[in-house]
């Protein structure tokens, strides 16, 4: 096992990219992603990472250059946040449909306007249908682990899809956390060299990115859908292998203190850590409360979600994004969809908390719990609640 040291999470992610021995990085700086790309630039400049770092002039070009290098057969990485992800949006759909195994860290940040550099998940949620595999890390170590796992998942011949590893901006990216290093020999065992199916090379000319008429388009979409759905098994396989090698095991959906619980918080991303703390407190006060953490968002793990959530009476789903004028919280909305066909459905309380980095201390979770219990008594509650908002 490697050493355990303290490190800023952004640097852990860069170290993971270095360990993956990427060939090409094309990125454009944006807060709070900057520390990742700055550190990668340094690694390349100092000769610690043998990669081409393309200083593109925008995120649109970042993802476009990633498309070119990935198609040429290079292991390719980028990172972005917020407006940068939105500027890439057009390309996100293209590279996934073209089955390019690009790995991207999305350091989640709110979308303008008003301009705000702080954290929420409105950036990735605005792009949730772009056909990428989407993983949400809960803490620093996991941000590191998932980055390495992402390359292995993306490049697996049974998958060949881009992977976005999400980590909450500042809350994770800018804090120093304990970090267990991983030896290069372990990475070598875990992550084989990228062996693409087709590449752009004159020795074997191929045409990539042809257009489709209506007679073929739906079939290509269906193929994409099946590919991402089937990636689920590979993702589990990869996480299991990583668990064997490092002792750190990951599941698409994870439970904490759910024994005997009638009510659970459902979280995604770094709220998982906070949720555990809150559950400890509520349990100490004798409440039958647990926590369910969603790690895999695409492919959406319907079966795991049903297996877990149907055991409880009340779900308190905490989103970090708002679908304005629509369904409220995106995570809550998808979970409700998953529950629809059940005969007996748990009560769903949807909370939107922490928009643009608004502090969410444990007390806020406890307020959510109390509000839900109050609602249950009256048998009446809103479709969703914006936590702590002044009106």
């Amino acid at each position, binding site marked *: 096992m490697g050493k355990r040291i303290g490190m800023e999470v952004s640097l852990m992610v860069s170290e993971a990219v270095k360990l993956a021995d990427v060939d090409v990085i094309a990125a454009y700086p944006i807060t709070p992603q900057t520390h990742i790309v700055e550190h990668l630039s340094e690694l390349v400049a100092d000769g610690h990472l043998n990669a081409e770092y393309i200083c593109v002039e925008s995120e649109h070009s970042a993802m476009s*250059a990633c498309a070119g290098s990935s198609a040429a057969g290079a292991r390719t990485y980028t990172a972005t946040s917020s407006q940068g992800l939105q500027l890439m949006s057009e390309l996100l759909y293209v590279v996934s449909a073209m089955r390019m195994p690009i790995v991207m860290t999305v350091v989640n940040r709110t979308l303008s306007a008003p301009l705000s550099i702080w954290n929420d998940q409105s950036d990735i949620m605005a792009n949730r249908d772009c056909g990428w595999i989407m993983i949400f890390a809960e803490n620093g170590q996991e941000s590191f682990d998932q980055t390495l796992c992402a390359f292995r998942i993306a490049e697996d011949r049974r998958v060949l899809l881009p992977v976005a590893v999400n980590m909450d901006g500042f809350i994770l990216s800018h804090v120093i956390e304990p970090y267990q290093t991983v030896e290069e020999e372990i990475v070598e065992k875990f992550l084989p060299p990228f062996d693409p199916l087709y590449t752009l090379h004159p020795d074997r000319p191929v045409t990539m990115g042809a257009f*489709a008429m209506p007679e073929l388009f739906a079939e290509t979409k269906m193929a994409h859908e099946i590919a991402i759905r089937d990636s689920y098994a590979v993702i589990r396989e990869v996480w299991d292998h990583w668990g064997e090698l490092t002792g750190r095991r990951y599941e698409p959906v994870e439970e904490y203190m759910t024994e005997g619980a009638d009510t659970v918080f459902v979280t995604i991303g770094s709220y998982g850590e906070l949720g555990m703390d809150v559950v400890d407190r509520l349990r100490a006060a004798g409440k039958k409360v647990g926590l369910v953490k969603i790690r895999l968002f695409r492919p959406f793990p319907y079966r795991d979600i049903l297996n877990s959530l149907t055991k409880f009476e009340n779900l308190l789903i905490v989103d970090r994004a708002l679908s304005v004028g629509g369904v409220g919280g995106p995570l809550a909305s998808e979970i409700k969809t998953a529950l629809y066909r059940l005969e007996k459905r748990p009560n769903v309380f949807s909370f939107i908390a922490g928009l643009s980095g608004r502090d969410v201390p444990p007390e806020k979770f406890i307020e959510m719990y109390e509000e839900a219990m109050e609602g249950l008594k009256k048998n009446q509650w809103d479709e969703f609640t914006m936590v702590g908002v002044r009106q």
Partner: protein
Amino acid sequence: MIDKYAVFVPNLTNRAENFTSGHRACQGCAEALAVRHVLKALGHDIVISNATGCMEIVSSPLPLTAWNVPWIHVTFENAGAVASGVAAGLKVLMRKGKIPEKRIVSVGMGGDGATTDIGLQALSGALERMHKDFLYVCFDNEAYMNTGIQRSSSTPYGAATTTSPAGKDSIGQHTWKKNMAAIAVAHDIPYVATACSSYPFDLQAKVIKAVESGGPAYLHVLSVCPTGWRIPSHLAIKYGRLAVETGVFPLYEVQDGKYRMTADIPKLRPVRDYLSGQGRFRHLTDTDIDIIQKRVTKEYDKLISLHKSNNG
């Protein structure tokens, strides 16, 4: 003499057709012809990154392709950036010994819309980064033809398009054609040239020079579009020559910053010869044509003086 020349020269050009027949370009399309010549000159060891537009659409209906060389299309405004990624990918894979060393030219290509408007930023980034073995070719048919002849910043003054129609209060396009070659030159790259498929040997020679310069290099190729210019389909070559002979589209190259005129035109023909017969200009009055003549003469004289001072 001319006859001998005409028989001999084609034998010297690459016989391989890497942009093959069977594509769906309109009859008489000189943009498709320009692509064909460029590919002949480029040879085998290239990768093409093509922007959305006529040439992409006519050549790549799934599951068919007209391309005998590696080719990728991603979106409309990013050919410069995709070609950058290809160049960087090939370079690092060779450096790391993952693919054999050999010179492969990364070629970005797009129409005037993809180049002078929506893709200008991505192209500027690519030229500024000084990628080696990198060439970008703009096939300029002076409008967004693929979407139905809308104006671009490369549409000439006075041309009627579907978004710059001529009318009681409109001359058609009311701005002057953007000087894209000058913008490329401003990036201080080793080679920039203008060309036209009506001058195929000049075009091919420039492609070869562009590649030999090491890159990045930029070629701006006037590509006559009978459909959009509203001319009979058999006159594309003639109108390309008229564009050059009237000075409307001068042929020149800029090697390491030095301008050189490349077509021998002892005396320019009047622009009227070029404008008349094109449906897109048919509403122009004598006064309009005078304005255009003045502008063309002025711009041409500028180039001539650059040529003279650089080759004095």
